[in-house]
């Protein structure tokens, strides 16, 4: 029951938080492209980083803003951490874990070096307390629905009793949504704790000017010996893309988190670090009212789009073709063999428009006016659809209005980018199910069926089968049309060493350092 109750809010989270970072620290793997190390890392110094907007809360269970999940990995640590490519999990606060499919348990042995920034050791009681917060989370609680109970046989051992074997759980446990907090908030009141939280991440909160800046200082008790290299990280909120560029050029900012795609070419070429994001830009249609009730018109729209040109122009070349409706970077998501996503056939599109009930009226396409690549893409779609005989006008909306219109089904067409919040298909599937397939109000049955199957999957093959079943059903309805997979870009100054872009735009700053 908890799952269904929480899904509706989780979807909002996935939409507004355009992409989420992995909380796992320790970018020890290799990711390309990256700002690779050119010499031995030097200890000391601090870096200034820009955030496109302020963090909305320090509580990961209530956080919606993407920017919050950029900051969390610096302050919090989880039982596991992810490799920079987001495909494998590594030990973190837990030095090891073992699964017992027969007993349906997941047992963690905590790292003896794991301590919170106040010097107190991380114990099994802390994990049990934290799991209580995760499961009760209004936004992300459903990710932990397979955890039935938590046992703490000793201070360094935690046993998760599961309702079913859950292939996706370790990945979820490597995110900031599964950050470990001190038992009973370390003796503080809940409100006091979330004002200035104590975590086991590489840094601790030093100062915060709400909505403007956050100053983090090195956590002297960090579990990874010798890290972090930096003495501190200073985040400042710089909302305007032009300002971000100017501050980066002047040296006032060392790292721009989330460079606007359109502005990327203005940055020095070697400063941009990018990776395919965990998001997908989609064209969603209102299948319950208006001319888009007609599936033939929806299919015509899908076939009228020249996806290669759209990627080149609408996404300024900073995207790749979408091969699935679910974010294709997410482990377990693969191209469905029967799906025809990103296929163009103008002749058939014209035929379908002729056959449909569409009478040539203007269709309004809403898109966020605030940020993101959608605005340009939406404009690029207009002449493509016009060529097939579908008249469309673009109406940019502030993100809040956009979400309001989408959730009230007060729209005809919408371009949005939704992102996975964790490296598991559970998250995007949950988002799609809860939003009636990105607010298109199409049949949620395939989503729910896939969700159940993925939760119950014990092997990657079972996950793949469930996901492909969903993709085939989504492709048949054309209620939501994936347009492109936009890149996630960061700008990193030359003096920064050790930066590795992660597909979920999240990186931990523990291995960042300043060049000699």
């Amino acid at each position, binding site marked *: 029951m908890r799952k269904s109750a929480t899904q509706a809010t989780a979807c909002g989270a996935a939409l507004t938080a355009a992409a989420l970072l992995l909380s796992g620290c320790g970018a020890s793997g290799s990711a390309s492209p990256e700002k690779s190390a050119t010499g031995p890392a030097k200890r000391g110094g601090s870096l200034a980083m820009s955030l496109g907007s302020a963090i909305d809360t320090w509580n990961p269970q209530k956080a919606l803003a993407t920017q919050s999940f950029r900051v969390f990995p610096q302050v919090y640590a989880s039982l596991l951490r992810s490799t920079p490519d987001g495909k494998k999990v590594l030990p973190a606060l837990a030095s090891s874990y073992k699964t017992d499919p027969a007993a349906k348990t997941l047992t963690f042995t905590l790292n003896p070096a794991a301590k919170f920034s106040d010097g107190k050791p991380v114990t099994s009681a802390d994990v049990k307390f934290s799991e209580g917060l995760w499961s009760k989370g209004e936004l992300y609680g459903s990710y932990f629905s397979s955890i039935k109970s938590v046992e703490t046989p000793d201070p360094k051992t935690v046993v998760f009793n599961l309702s079913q074997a859950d292939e996706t759980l370790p990945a979820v446990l490597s995110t900031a949504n599964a950050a470990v907090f001190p038992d009973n908030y370390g003796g503080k009141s809940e409100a006091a704790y979330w004002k200035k939280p104590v975590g086991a991440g590489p840094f601790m909160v030093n100062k915060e000017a709400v909505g403007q800046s956050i100053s983090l200082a090195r956590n002297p008790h960090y579990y990874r010996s010798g890290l972090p290299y930096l003495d501190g990280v200073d985040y400042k909120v710089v909302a305007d893309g032009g300002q971000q560029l100017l501050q980066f050029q002047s040296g006032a900012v060392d790292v721009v988190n989330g460079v606007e795609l359109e502005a990327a070419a203005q940055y020095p070429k070697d400063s941009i670090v990018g990776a395919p994001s965990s998001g997908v830009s989609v064209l969603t249609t209102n299948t319950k009212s208006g001319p888009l009730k007609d599936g033939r018109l929806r299919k015509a729209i899908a076939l009228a789009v020249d996806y290669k040109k759209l990627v080149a*122009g609408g996404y300024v070349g900073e995207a790749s073709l979408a091969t699935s409706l679910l974010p294709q970077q997410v482990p377990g998501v693969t191209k469905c063999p029967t799906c025809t996503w990103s296929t163009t056939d103008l002749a058939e599109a014209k035929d379908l428009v002729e056959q449909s009930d569409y009478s040539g009226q203007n269709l309004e396409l809403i898109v966020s006016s605030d940020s993101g690549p959608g605005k340009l893409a939406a404009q*690029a779609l207009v002449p493509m659809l016009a060529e097939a005989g579908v008249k469309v006008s673009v109406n940019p909306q502030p993100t809040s209005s956009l979400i309001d219109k989408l959730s009230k089904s007060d729209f005809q067409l919408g371009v949005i980018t939704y992102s996975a919040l964790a490296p598991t298909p559970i998250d995007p599937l949950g988002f799609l199910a809860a939003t009636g397939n990105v607010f298109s109000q199409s049949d949620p049955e395939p989503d729910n069926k896939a969700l159940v199957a993925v939760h119950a999957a014990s092997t990657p093959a079972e996950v793949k089968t469930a996901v492909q079943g969903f993709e085939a059903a989504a492709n048949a309805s054309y209620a939501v049309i994936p347009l492109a997979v936009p890149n996630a870009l960061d700008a990193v100054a030359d003096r920064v060493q050790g930066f590795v872009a992660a597909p979920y735009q999240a990186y931990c700053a523990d291995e960042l350092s300043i060049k000699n």
Partner: protein
Amino acid sequence: MTDTAKIAAEEAPPARKPRSRRRRGDGKVAVGMVIVGLFVLAAVFAPLITSGHPADQDLLNRLAPPSHAHLLGTDQLGRDEWTRLVYAIRVDLRVALLGSLIPAILGSLIGIAAGLGSSWLDTAIMRTSDIVVSLPLFIFFIALVGLLGPGTGFLFLGPGELPLIIGFTVISWVVYARLLRSEVRRVRSMDYVRAARLGGLPRWRVIGWHIVPNSIGQTVVYLFVDVGLAVVAISTLSFLGVGIPIETPEWGAMIQSGRTVIQTNWWLIAAPGAAIALIGMGLALIGDGLDDRIKS
């Protein structure tokens, strides 16, 4: 020639040098008219001096530099910048003109009523205008346009234009009303108006023949300045993403979209920026010149 005629010719005053017909302000008006006229001509003959349609995209030729094929290069969607710049004149001038003319007519009528009506009517109008003046202009516009939505156009107006004109009307009538009210109050106490009244002329004739024509001068001057201000306001609102639909060629929207590539394709901002400055200057010169004429 007879003696009489000779004497008359000798006594005739020397022929006067013809007085210059130029009046103060003529130069400004002329320069202003040339600038505005060029813009109007460009708008009228847009299809002849541009290539293609302003909405035509060439996604594989984005951000091309200025060339023979594209005088001002191409924008983020491969649209010809020169074509968009020229077609934008139609949109900006149309909305600015109507957004100034309608409130000018409405405000003038209200101003005349306030200036000639009873004291309670004058008070009511002036207090109402105080309220309108206190409205934060751009917030009001954003709210109004959001409320009305862009629509699909009205008569010869394109989508998004009518809400802007309504917004200008709601806000701008006040200036005209106050201007004309004070002029009317000044003129109505002039001796020639009193004489006309005492001479038994009907009230409507005194107003129509003596008061209004002698009060309207400053309003006409301000109208030209107001059109220029309206162009700037429309561009500002479009820059903020309010009003004219995003795909419509409009100077403010062009500056907005060029903002992100200012360092590599600065002309995408410079060209519409210069257009706004030029048309504003042209209209201001006309207004200024007319003002000089009235004062001289």
